[in-house]
């Protein structure tokens, strides 16, 4: 085996070329891992908005709360189900909720924001929703609480500010966080007041907290079978994962498509560099063969060198992608017509994948040049 420091030194000797190649590979790995982190961020943002013991009740066939409708009577019936958990005062943890879109001004444009009409149980049933400043809106008033991601997104969207929509004024009295979930992109107001302002007599959905997540399957069946309404129940995490699937798929398909195409370019780049490395070292490689290194050792040596390039690129790209953690993205979810806010979320798997991806590109880029190096005739090589 040819010692590895020999490869490291020869890469260093041509550091401009090495640097350009590593940078190119690094950029590809960067895009690859950033895309995966983004798709992961969307999914965890939307899917984080869910507790497995909570059921979302929608009209049968409705794919989102926005197009769903649940009558007031149905909510009362649901509250009598034996699996429903109770609050501290013994009240059933069931809330009818109304979801509408409001266009809040942002500069010249407007952004579609989800306004959720809630009842006191909406807070109690979702322990992950915690006020970080101010207080809960009082029932029966126009007071609203903002998800953390909305603060500052529109001129009046701050604690103490006053929003205007549906020809009414809505003072902001609180800001809440929700474990980086989708609720952080929502504003919460009293369900009845919101329904009045939007001329909606019923609810969009109902939230039911069960005593235990294990009751979920049976509860789903009971809701499905109940002849008094045509509703269906699904676990809250499932509901939110479905809401995220379109956007996440879009970003994933687009990103992986682009990463694939990029990687072709980067592999060619690595190949160019490795061919040049072999070409400039023909005499050295001939010497190695002459002193007794086998073809296989020369092949391994060139491949190892290319792997170093790839691994360096992978490391650079993965580190670069990690810096995007501090970026936050706000965009329209095509499925719900409302804005969601999310970040780039790294996982050990993604980072490992990035390193592997970079190394693979190096491996593929180095293979043909390595074969050429191994096939050199000793005499020709020494003469060059």
């Amino acid at each position, binding site marked *: 085996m040819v010692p590895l420091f020999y490869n490291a030194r020869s890469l260093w000797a041509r550091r401009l*070329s090495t640097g*350009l*190649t590593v940078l*190119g590979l690094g*950029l*590809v790995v*960067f*895009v690859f891992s950033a895309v995966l982190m*983004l798709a992961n961020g969307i999914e965890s943002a939307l899917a984080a908005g869910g507790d497995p013991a909570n059921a979302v009740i929608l*009209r*049968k*066939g*409705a*794919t*989102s709360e*926005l*197009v*769903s*409708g649940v009558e007031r009577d149905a909510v009362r019936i649901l509250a009598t189900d034996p699996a429903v958990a109770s609050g501290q005062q013994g009240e059933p943890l069931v809330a009818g909720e109304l979801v*509408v*879109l*409001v*266009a809040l001004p942002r500069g010249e*444009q407007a*952004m*579609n924001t989800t306004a959720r009409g809630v009842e006191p149980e909406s807070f109690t049933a979702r322990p992950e929703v915690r006020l970080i400043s101010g207080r809960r809106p009082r029932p029966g008033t126009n007071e609203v609480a903002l998800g953390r991601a909305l603060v500052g997104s529109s001129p009046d969207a701050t604690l103490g500010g006053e929003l205007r*929509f*549906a*020809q009414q004024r809505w003072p902001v009295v609180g800001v809440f966080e929700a474990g980086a979930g989708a609720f952080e992109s929502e504003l919460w107001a009293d369900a009845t007041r919101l329904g009045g302002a*939007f*001329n*909606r*007599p*019923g609810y969009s959905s109902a939230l039911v907290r069960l005593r235990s997540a294990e009751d979920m399957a049976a509860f789903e069946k009971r809701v499905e079978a109940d002849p008094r309404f*045509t509703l269906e129940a699904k676990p809250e995490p499932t509901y939110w994962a479905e809401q995220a699937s*379109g956007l996440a*798929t*879009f*970003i994933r*398909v*687009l990103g992986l*498509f*682009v990463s694939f*195409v*990029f990687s*072709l*370019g*980067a592999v*060619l*780049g690595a*190949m*160019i*560099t490795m*061919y*040049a490395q072999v070409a400039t070292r023909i005499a050295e490689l001939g010497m190695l063969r002459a002193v007794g290194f086998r073809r296989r050792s020369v092949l391994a040596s060139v491949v190892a060198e290319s792997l170093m390039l790839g691994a360096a690129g992978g490391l650079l790209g993965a580190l670069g992608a990690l810096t995007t953690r501090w970026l936050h*993205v706000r*965009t*329209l979810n095509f*499925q719900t*017509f409302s804005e969601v806010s999310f970040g780039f979320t790294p996982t050990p798997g993604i980072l490992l994948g990035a390193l592997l991806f970079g190394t693979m590109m190096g491996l593929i880029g180095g293979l043909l040049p390595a074969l050429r190096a191994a096939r050199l005739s000793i005499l020709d090589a020494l003469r060059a």
Partner: protein
Amino acid sequence: MNYVRLAARDLLRNPLRLSLTILAGAVGVTAFIFLRTVIDIFYFGAQAAQVDRLIVRNKVSITEPLPLSYYARIAALPGVTAVTHQEWFGGTLGETQKDFFANFAIDPVTFLDVFPEFTTSPAELADFRNDPCGALIGEKLARRFGWKPGDRVTLKGQIYPGDWTFNVRGIYTGTRPGVDTTALVFGYRCLNESEQLPEGLKDMVGIYAVRVDDPARSGQVAAAIDGMFDNSPYPTKAESEKAFQLGFVAMSSAILTAVKVVSAVILLIILLVIGNTLAMGVRERTRDIATLRAMGFRPRTVVMLVLAESSVIGLMAAALGVLAAPTLVNGFARAIASQFGQIPDNVMRGRTLGVSALAAVLVSLLAGAGPAFRAVRMSVAEGLRKVA
């Protein structure tokens, strides 16, 4: 023998490296075109927007409805030549978003007055108007599912719960290339007079589309419409079709920005690959370049020779990339069609191809700049003795 020949010979010194570089560049150009086309798709609605058209929606948000009674009041305004309304139906073929396509309820009488870019045969149009639950489908949609006049299509409603069956009465086409023909439209009566209609949606419509006689006065007409309904329970927001479409684009701006950043990253990768190749070429030719300089070739000439090489690489990469791009874009369109609906034809615009090719050539020139600068900066006296 001339400069062109000299540059050509230098380029062909290492044919393998040249072809790898061109190939890598072409891959980059293809990816660049692809991403620019994705951006174009977002702007497609705004591109197709007509200057003489206004869209009137509920001021609260696009998902809130407007009363049908506004129709006559808008139509009576001076400067308005035609009005029609439509409702996003949002029905799906199955239980899921799979096989997604756009579907609207429209007013069969006035629809084509406001949207003259769609056309269908007079016979099919008459059939459509005579059937309360008749539907017209775009020719691209018809091709996708193999539907033809006489077929019945059942959609699962979400906003309008239940199963809704429509009779395909005709196929509409675009009067010019680039018109979106991927949607299904059906008569509003089918919806409004149905017993399945949810409470509160009777005599309500989604948006109004208004045609004005003079595009220059469309701002005044919009203001007049909004003013008329300002104090009603359903205030409106009227804006040009383009502004309406751009509103949607603006909400996706983060994604668009990401795509734009990535497309810039591609240019950077092309820059690195071509720059690397040229830098190697210049380094290997140090002695040749020094000899040329000693013989009296001006620095400018040497720079031109290097730049000529890089621009040839750029041109070849651009040409190859432009040839390969349509395949890639169509492949992507097929991959996402079932989830997001079809992508209109002609979405890959000549302008995008041109801009991408130009960007590739400029980037390759930029890539040549560093090596060219090195070539003239190095000491002639030292370069003459350098053994490559």
